[in-house]
């Protein structure tokens, strides 16, 4: 075992820090640190292109397609530094979900067509998996894509499709073979501006729409937009999830949250002294700091393929459960630290343009908005209950 970062990794960290210092502006940093959902889209696209110029846009893609070739540790360092510096969080759907799938399973034409705009951030993607009747039980999805000459005719309805309203492209799960119950599911790329697509925003609990309903009504999609062979979507989905085994721990956000909590607690007061010195508050904060630090080691163990006493296939679920539980607790502690100020509604736009005053300091906007939204983190990406079912099955054959 060697549980230390190497000198090279530390030098890399300094290089990343210097780059971030040079390239981020205070306005962008402020907007990122508000942690609103959805984040500012222009900032993300701009940052995507800035990183691409440096060759750093796509740590999750293979090197030959524009990836960075970093070790998992370096990638972790890079993401942590970006988060803490207030860099916009790049959208996942293209860079981290469908990009790697296209590189692995896509045709040469698909790679040429779709990867460069993903690297540059000019084309953003939506993930169209869930349906009204198919949430946890994704395999029961009903949307269909029926081959008609050289095109598929797609019909159905998706829901909870994050950011679909301002995405150029979508990757959808559809049934290409309507005869079998579980087979016949394929992944298909659809241009979101195609005739027959209607998109309706869903206002979320934090007062802003970040997810959408997508109605597909006889949408014509070129046959070559199917990824791989028909009926192989599960294989692709499994690959997609395996790539992102540790991301649901949300470890970078957790560190950002801790920093935010401490910053608030230094400014707020209780019993005549800074909240951060209040024994009860310190107890709660320290407890969460310890759990986040332990979660960090759990993430590192998975990233480095550490030998495990339990089936490694269960580890993504372990990280997701702990990570989402911590998100609930961290964002609650942040709102608790604000006291009644936490009650003021800041929509995303209000948070970006908030008037800062002694009554309403700059650390207020976004805290409660984030807390409310993060109630969803134990629901999306495989709910807490489903993750528990998975662990029981994989780790204990129960």
């Amino acid at each position, binding site marked *: 075992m060697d549980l230390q970062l190497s000198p090279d990794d530390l030098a890399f960290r300094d290089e990343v820090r210097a780059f971030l210092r040079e390239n981020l502006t205070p306005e962008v940093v402020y907007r990122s640190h508000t942690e609103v959902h959805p984040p500012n889209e222009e900032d993300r696209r701009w940052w995507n292109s800035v990183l691409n110029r440096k060759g750093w846009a796509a740590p999750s893609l293979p090197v030959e397609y524009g990836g960075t070739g970093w070790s998992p540790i370096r990638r972790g360092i890079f993401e942590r530094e970006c988060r803490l510096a207030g860099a916009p969080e790049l959208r996942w759907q293209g860079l981290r979900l469908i990009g790697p799938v296209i590189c692995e399973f896509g045709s040469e034409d698909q790679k040429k067509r779709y990867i460069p705009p993903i690297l540059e951030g000019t084309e953003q993607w939506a993930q169209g998996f869930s349906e009204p009747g198919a949430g946890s039980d994704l395999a029961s999805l009903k949307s269909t894509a029926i081959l008609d000459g050289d095109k598929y005719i797609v019909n159905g309805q998706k829901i909870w499709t994050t950011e679909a309203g301002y995405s150029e492209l979508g990757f959808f799960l559809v049934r290409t073979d309507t005869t079998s119950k579980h087979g016949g599911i394929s992944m298909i790329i659809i241009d979101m501006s195609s005739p027959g697509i209607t998109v309706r925003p869903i206002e*979320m*609990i934090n007062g802003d729409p970040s997810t959408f309903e997508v109605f597909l009504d006889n949408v014509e999609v070129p046959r070559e937009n199917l990824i791989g062979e028909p009926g192989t979507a599960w294989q692709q989905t499994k690959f997609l999830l395996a790539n992102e085994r540790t991301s649901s721990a949300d470890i970078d956000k957790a560190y950002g949250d801790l920093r935010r909590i401490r910053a608030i607690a230094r400014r707020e007061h209780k019993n005549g002294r800074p909240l951060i010195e209040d024994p*009860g508050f310190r107890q709660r904060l320290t407890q969460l700091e310890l759990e986040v630090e332990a979660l960090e080691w759990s993430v590192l163990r998975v990233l480095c393929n550490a030998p495990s006493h339990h089936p490694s296939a269960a580890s993504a679920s372990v990280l997701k459960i702990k990570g989402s539980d911590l998100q609930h607790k961290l964002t609650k502690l942040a709102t608790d630290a604000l006291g009644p100020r936490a*009650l003021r509604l800041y929509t995303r736009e209000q948070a970006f343009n908030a008037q800062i005053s002694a009554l309403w300091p700059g650390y207020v906007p976004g805290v409660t908005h984030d807390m*409310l939204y993060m109630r969803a983190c134990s629901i999306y990406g495989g709910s807490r209950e489903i993750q528990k079912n998975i662990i029981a099955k994989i780790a204990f054959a129960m």
Partner: protein
Amino acid sequence: MDFALTDEQKMLADGAARYVRERCDLESRRKAAASEDGFSRRHWRHFADQGWLALTLPEAAGGLEMTVEDMSILVEELGRGLVCEPLVDSAVTCAHLLSASGSEAARAILADIATGEAIVTLAHLEEGDHSEYDAPVASRAERIDDGWTLSGTKTCVFYGASATHFVVSARNNGDDGYGLFLVAADADGIRREGYSLIDGTRAADVHFDNVRVPASALLHEPATAATVLESALDRAVVIFGAGVVGSMEAVLELTSEYLKTREQYGKPLASFQALKHRMSEMLVETEQARSALYSALAAIDSDDGQRRRRAISGAKALIAQSGHFVIGEGIQLHGGIGVTEEYAVGHHFKALIVYDKRFGDSDFHIERCGQIPAEEPQAP
């Protein structure tokens, strides 16, 4: 002891339940939240017509002299239906401060509270304050010939932009404590900046710039103000707590119904044991909250300040904590629909957060309880 509702209480609860069922759907709630007031003037008139605003007021002011218990029965039903109106702020908290005052001006306003014409709200919290119970109060009251001038800035004043009157805390140079003053909201020198809160209610920052008020505006002298305010806050905490218990009951009902109708993996969600257990845990917590509420109701009029404090603060903390679990899990068991504005469970969650953060949060109240020793069990 008898926990059964009296006939009168039953009528009150049924009337409120019927009103909520027939007139208070989520759509109208969302519309009210989007309005300038953050509540519905239509509901407000109904409240007045039903005598709900007069429930706990003294007879002399046209009130019904009913109890805090009665009011909590009403507010529990309103909480189920997510109805939020300045009922408690005006007709309980401020009405208590007014009726406990000997001032002539106070009596006149009480009658207007009963009819709904006056909306009176507490302007007490200032920059950085976390709880009404220990707010230090920096606003100033200066004596002039025929009265006072008030200066200072109050924040998180509930319904501050819609109120007709404020009860304002302010201290006179040299006095130990602060006094409580009744001030018309349209008095010269008052500026209000309104904003929405997460649950759709509206609040305001209220700036008082040398606002002149007559001598009779002083409701409570510094010697007694803090004590009277504490008992007014206690009433608000208990009654709002009943509203949260109503929210929890509504969430139990909504969620159990949803689990029975929503199917995944070819069967109703209600058939999964993990979810049955979760529903059971939610019931356990709801029962704890209701019991804490009753213990607070039993102590609300107690002359034993220690006992009252412990019961009120204890209930505040437990109701907020149980509510967080019950309503949070209510969201969880709904899946995606639970985290939308289009569905009630998320609104209940936000109403709970407002309860938790008003009057001091759970940490504050547990600490407050901890300063008072528990009673040792007595040998029979």
